[in-house]
């Protein structure tokens, strides 16, 4: 009755997953709890209060944080989208296009953003932008974000593509599909888990970046990390915890919605 063993299960993997989730969420639970703290300090509990949430929406700094959040999301979504597209094309070239000139160094090139220490990229990019007469602003942030997001999008996508045999597309071509059709109808759907992984990684990397952004941003343009940086460095302020909790809430709502939409789509079928 060996067949009865569920081959997908390995003893110990489930506890590992829970451990993983625990480690990821434990510090955030602290953040959430203390965002309801009446007291200014993180060390003492001063009773339950919503005052920091009020501060986020109506406090003196609320305008700054709102603008920063909007900038951050626009930049993160755009940078993640662009870099995912670029990375998908690059992965196709590397794994599906046979030999071409410059293939040898391409792998190193794509991973270069990962290898240069952030502070060096930051200083070098700023010097470069000012040398070519680019005014720093949102565009400079966006460009540099696209660059350093590429390897984070590329590696999961390429890893996925390596697992897909070429025979599917060849079969499609044998049935007179154009190469574009083969790409769009065969490769892309098969690639989706890799592309989603890559997009998510690029998104969180862009959303989180401080060092490079701080150097290449224009005066007065804030992203979330640069806006909260000062209020966090010397110990987290409660209003920052409230903002973080709200961000988590937004992400959870986002996930729930996408799950519901996905389920509806399934039911209709």
């Amino acid at each position, binding site marked *: 009755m060996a067949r009865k063993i569920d081959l997908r299960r390995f003893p110990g993997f489930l506890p590992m997953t829970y451990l993983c989730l625990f480690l990821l969420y434990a510090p955030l639970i602290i953040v959430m709890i203390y965002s309801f703290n009446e007291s*200014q*300090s993180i*060390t*003492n509990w001063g009773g339950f209060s919503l005052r920091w949430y009020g501060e986020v929406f109506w406090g*003196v*700094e609320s305008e*700054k944080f709102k603008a920063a959040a*909007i*900038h951050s999301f*626009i930049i993160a*979504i*755009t940078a993640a989208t662009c870099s995912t597209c670029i990375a998908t094309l690059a992965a196709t070239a590397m794994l599906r296009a046979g030999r071409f000139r410059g293939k040898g160094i391409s792998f190193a090139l794509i991973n270069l953003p990962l290898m240069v220490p952030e502070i060096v990229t930051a*200083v070098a990019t*700023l*010097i470069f*932008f*000012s*040398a070519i007469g680019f005014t*720093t*602003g*949102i*565009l400079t942030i966006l460009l540099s974000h696209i660059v350093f997001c590429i390897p984070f999008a590329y590696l999961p996508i390429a890893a996925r593509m390596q697992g897909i045999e070429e025979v599917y597309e060849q079969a499609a071509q044998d049935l007179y599909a154009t190469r574009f059709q083969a790409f769009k109808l065969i490769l892309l759907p098969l690639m989706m888990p890799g592309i989603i992984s890559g997009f998510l990684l690029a998104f969180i990397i862009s959303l989180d970046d401080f060092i490079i952004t701080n*150097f290449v*941003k*224009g*005066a*007065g*343009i804030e992203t979330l990390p*640069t806006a909260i*940086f*000062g*209020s966090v*460095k*010397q*110990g987290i302020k409660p209003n920052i915890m409230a903002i973080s909790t709200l961000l988590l809430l937004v992400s959870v709502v986002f996930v729930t919605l996408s799950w519901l939409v996905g389920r509806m789509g399934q039911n209709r079928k």
Partner: protein
Amino acid sequence: MNTLLKTWASVLALTLAATGAQAEGKLSIYHWFEYIPQELLDKFAAEYDVEVTMDTFDSNEAMLASLKAGKMGTYDVAVPGDYMVEIMAGEGMLDRFEPSELSNFGNIAPQWLDVGFDPGRHSSIPYQWGSTSFSVNRDVYKGDINTSDILFNPPAELQGKINMLDSQGEVLALASMHLGIPQCTSDRDQLKALNALLQSQKPNWASFSSDGAKDVLVSGDAAAGMIWNGFSAKAREEGANIEYAFPKEGFVVWMDNVVLLKDAPNRANALLFMNFLLEPENAAAVTNYAQYTSGVTGVLVFLEESVANAPELSPPDGQKGEFIMACPQEVQAVYDKIWTDLKK
């Protein structure tokens, strides 16, 4: 999907365009983080109808690096510390103004008027000043704390429980005072002694942290720690039973200054802002927020009582602090080596 893309493209275009527009009446400030209340900036913006933007930095050196890498011409004013004013002036990064251009120039406290780093105040005005030494948790150690032995030859209770500022200049300055040698000495034996002192004391130090200097004292992670006086006052208010020391060997005094940057895009507004900060009421607002001491006369009446009477802000009579010196290149090279050796 297509409509989604189009909407997104227009959102993106709008964002890019909106930030590209240059409005009249702007002021761009490069400031330390957490060092000016937002209300004060709003007040200035409302009073003079100027759009104020502010970027922040976390150390004098970081500010210098970013200005040098290409941000000159972006900001109107910056807030460097004392020795950094001198360095920036030497680099030709500062613009000059005449005292007559600021109607409140006379409000500058006399002792801060003719300072070594900007004689006659032609590029800078005082912002806040304070001192750097250390604070000790009185639950842990009850002996005399007004000696730099606490850091550099600690009693058994404090060994391994000390946090140092992660700042080369301040650590080496206090260590030099502890040894009784001048700052930026070029005497080889003295420099060797300095190096030996730091090497021998490293095991007594638990961590290096500047931003966390308050936090480690409040949480009890450290029982003693190098810290700035205003920061220590905040730690005390948050419930730490700590006392700020004025060591007899000496302590560091610093002053932050608002400087007029060269190529300032809005020079006139920059001067308006500097003048605004010399108004006692506004200077007091900064002091109440940051808990350091203003360099402007007449602020006392506007101060909150807890700030005006904070023990951290009044050194005992007869004890004077020293400014950190900007060392010449050869000595700085040795300092860098000592610092790297300490943290290798």
